[in-house]
């Protein structure tokens, strides 16, 4: 096909820089399809660095792998793509783990609601509070560390600070556990103070476990805290005339102290998370 006219350099420059109005740009593009001379003219006045950048963006958009459901959801919530990837690799944020947590809470809620006597409902509610407080302890221990994170040693050998990675994942685990327990608590018999009584113990036990993990392996720390919590709460429930003693004012105050002390220990000993496997 031959053409009888050619666009001048000024027109081609305005087109290449995107300054031409839409109607004239369409008209010129139709002409460019048929005219080698003008196509060469556009190439000569185009910013090649900008074209390379645009091409790379197109290639990335077409070529980038499709991410999983969890990651896409996190990105939609405003989480940056690299943090979403770090969270998607958290063992205790998998659906199977969250399902197990929901099941544990479900049992406690059913126990509290299906009891015939007041004593039975009280025992079920107590069980729920003990379990809800413990949920994030296991989740945080499994979030990052030797044993449960399959890429722990590769992560440790990388420049990303383990403390930062652990805290990011711990916050996500604490958040999901809190939402699960919060929703389950709405189903407890009677909407009293017990609905939120597990919150401070939950945070306190999690931070105590993290503080202990600066000295021993995270799973050992979580196991020790779980055992201590179960023992203390059950012993106190039996020893006191009030089963919920540990969840009332004195207990909540004790957990505030535990939270403060644990935070100090974690902050002072955070370098322990970077040092490597304790064997």
């Amino acid at each position, binding site marked *: 096909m031959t053409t009888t006219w050619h666009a001048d350099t000024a027109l081609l420059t305005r087109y290449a820089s995107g300054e031409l109005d839409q109607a004239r740009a369409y008209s010129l593009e139709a002409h460019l399809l048929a005219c080698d001379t003008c196509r060469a003219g556009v190439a000569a006045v185009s910013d090649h660095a900008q074209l390379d950048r645009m091409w*790379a963006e197109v290639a990335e958009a077409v070529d980038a792998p499709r991410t999983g459901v969890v990651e896409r959801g996190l990105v939609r919530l405003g989480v940056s*793509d690299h943090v979403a990837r770090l969270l998607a690799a958290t063992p205790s944020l998998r659906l199977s783990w969250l399902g197990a947590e929901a099941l544990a809470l479900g049992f406690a809620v059913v126990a509290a609601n299906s009891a015939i006597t007041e004593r039975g409902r009280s025992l079920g509610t107590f069980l729920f509070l003990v379990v809800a407080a413990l949920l994030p302890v296991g989740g945080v221990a499994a979030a990052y560390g030797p044993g449960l994170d399959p*890429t722990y040693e590769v992560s440790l*050998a*990388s*420049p990303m600070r383990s403390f930062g990675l652990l805290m990011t994942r711990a916050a996500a685990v604490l958040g999901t556990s809190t939402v699960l327990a919060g929703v389950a608590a709405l189903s407890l018999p009677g909407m009293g103070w017990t609905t939120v009584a597990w919150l401070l113990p939950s945070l306190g036990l999690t931070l105590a476990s993290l503080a202990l993990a600066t000295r021993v392996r995270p799973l050992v720390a979580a196991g020790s805290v779980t055992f201590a919590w179960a023992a203390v709460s059950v012993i106190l429930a039996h020893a006191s005339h009030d089963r919920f003693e540990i969840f009332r004012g004195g207990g909540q105050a004790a957990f505030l102290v535990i939270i403060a002390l644990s935070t100090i220990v974690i902050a002072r000993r955070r*370098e322990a998370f*970077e040092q490597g*496997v304790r064997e």
Partner: protein
Amino acid sequence: MPTVQVIGIEKSFLRTRALAGVTFDAGAGITGLLGPNGAGKTTLLRMMATVLAPDAGQLRLLGWDPGKADERLAIRRRLGYMPQEPGFHRNFTAFEFVDYVAILKEMVDRRARHDEVRRVLELVGLEGVAGRKIKALSGGMRRRVALGQALLGDPDLLVLDEPTAGLDPEQRLRFREIVSERSADRTVILSTHQTEDVAALCPRVVVMNDGRTLFDGTPAELTDVARGRVWLAPERAPEAHLSWRTGDGRHRNIGTAPSGADVIEPTVEDGYLLLVGSKAFDEEAA
């Protein structure tokens, strides 16, 4: 100028002594750690990867002390590590997994990171299965994924623990090609109990056994350990420390050759077997 200095390193796990005063140094190029299972190779490599601290001794990597926080971070910024048993998030695709490690290596810019992930996947020949889940890959492919993540960012110090285990001969050749291309001005430390890897790849070899260094030299020098001490005979010779029947029906004997023996040219494996004795021989035969 050595980039890796190992001086009198000791390490025990409960009552088991894994390293009993290992000393050697390494510079640019490939250094092979050769030894039977339980020799302490993995323990030493984990220290070089900054994930395990020694009980005693000194370790310097790229001129820095991994025991100091800021220097350890500087090492980690220039380190690539492939563990002996690399773990994976099995629901990730090969691309997602390597991308995950790239994030851990502080590559935050998405496009530049993805370009780097594609580069290393192509290097290890996995560009065709980048979108396949790790759990659907063969053992050899997974090891190549593990090698790919170690190559991210073209590290100055590459620590590879048994990188050729589970690879078929073609993949092993490809591995040698990849690593040798990168070894001119970088330090590569790899452990193996495959003497052919050492002979083919490493200008320098350190033989370890029972947590100690038995030999430190070139593969040719390791071969020389067995020079004049390998001979063929119709049957197992009483003078042989080690002996096995070869394909042609004759016995290859290693030890103090009797006079008049049909002494043959030794190999790196002969030198290695003579050094580590029957323990390594049992494992090679297994």
